[in-house]
């Protein structure tokens, strides 16, 4: 059951006990001077949570507890053409996770998933080889 409050839409917990919030400020029309990346309207808060839940189940995370997601083999999820989601872990693990569209091409290392996660996606058929290599080379 999702709960809407002033910050966003709250979900969870996941099978591993994590809570999630789809934040309002990563949604809606892009505003001039606002650097926050924003989800496309086709990625609903429920989609966003489902992406996170799948990543949590499969352990698609880096050492810093940031989870990485992809939708439908790598379709656009962000308003600037981003094709992956980044879901950083909260400082206090009792707080919810959140997420936003990411692009290593535009933002560099902070938006680059670990190679192990990309190779896992490729092995499971979540993405094809073209998408995996482009992502590993920071081209998308």
């Amino acid at each position, binding site marked *: 059951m999702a709960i809407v409050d002033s910050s966003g839409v709250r979900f969870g917990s996941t099978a591993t006990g994590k809570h999630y919030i789809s934040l309002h400020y990563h949604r809606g029309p892009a505003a001039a001077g606002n650097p926050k990346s924003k989800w496309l309207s086709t990625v609903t808060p429920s989609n966003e949570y489902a992406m996170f839940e799948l990543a949590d189940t499969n352990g698609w995370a880096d050492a810093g507890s940031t989870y990485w997601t992809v939708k439908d083999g790598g379709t656009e999820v962000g308003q600037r053409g981003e094709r992956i989601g980044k879901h950083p872990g909260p400082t206090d693990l009792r707080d919810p996770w959140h997420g936003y569209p990411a692009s290593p091409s535009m933002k560099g290392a902070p938006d680059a998933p670990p190679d192990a996660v990309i190779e896992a996606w490729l092995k499971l058929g979540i993405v094809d080889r073209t998408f995996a*290599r482009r992502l590993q080379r920071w081209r998308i």
Partner: protein
Amino acid sequence: MANLASAPAIRQFLPGSFEDAFVYMNTLVVVTTDREILTTRFDRLIHRSAIGRDSQLLAGLFLLRNDFLEEEGTRSMLKDSLLSESLARRVSQTEEALLDLDEWEGRLGYEDLLGEGTLLDLQIYNQRLFAGTTHGVVQTNLLFELDDLRFSAPIKRTDARCLSLNIRYGTLAASCGPDGLLMSFDEFSELSNEPLSSLAVASTTPSVRTSWLGYHIVNYESATSVSGFRSKYRPTKSSRKANIVTEISADEGLLGAESEPADSDVDFRYNAHTTFFSHFSSGLFELRRRRWSHGRLGQIEFQSFGEMSRPLSTHSILHGFVAETYDAVVQVEREAVYVLYSGEAIVVRSFPYSQWYRNLILVVAEDGLHIMSPLRTALTD
């Protein structure tokens, strides 16, 4: 991609499951998904194309000796519009030929050379193969013995994850993302006989790729953020060779206005010497060439605008460049954009300066290797 014309080009296709490909000294080197490095003589491969004899002659000329397109006589002749239109029509009518290869001549296990990592970039220069991988930069020498090609024992140059490599003017520049720009100078011992060493950090600012502005380095910290490094260089003993870069240092003035903070609408930048390309989120792009005099950028020589999808990567050719977009590979010229390949590419490579294979373009896709030689470069200044 909306309404872009197809570039007249000779195209051939080698089916297979490849990660990367490179043509060097009449040798095609491919890295397969089975983690093998395979080699074959490039001319033998091209001569095995399954097309008629007339088209085979044309394909041979365009793929094996397309330096003829850059010769003064050819370029003068192609200024005759009837001749150039006729050649363009003939080239356009030549369908992509299937290449049939029974047996690769050279075969080597990937792990023997490149280790456990995933290949991110491959360069071969001066009989050395350099591989940028997720586990660092590895180098091996190519040993040509009659018809045989062997590789020397590999040498690890750095453990840093390497996104792209750039070799020119005696330097090896490795763009290693957050680890910065790693370089070696006098890489090929043209100034001294110092032994090979590890790559040194030339700049701690992030690096995803580099390009050249004269002898100076342009470092791309991301798709849109760029900074200049001025070089010091010395002549080699051989007067026929270019100077050798010996050191670089950050120089905010090198790029002038071209390095100003990224316009928030710019989503990709690139330069080939003094031609600067900026792509905007609206889909429009600007191409601008600046005068270059005494190591300084000067006034704008030309400026043109066009429309195309956002590039994922760019590759220089003579008279323009090739851009990989999400679902096509296009040839970008001053006045127009043409489609070279329709489909998603894993790797795109261009060879603008090879002695014989001028402007040869390789596109590695999921189905195999597409080899092409565009005609348009010969028709434009």
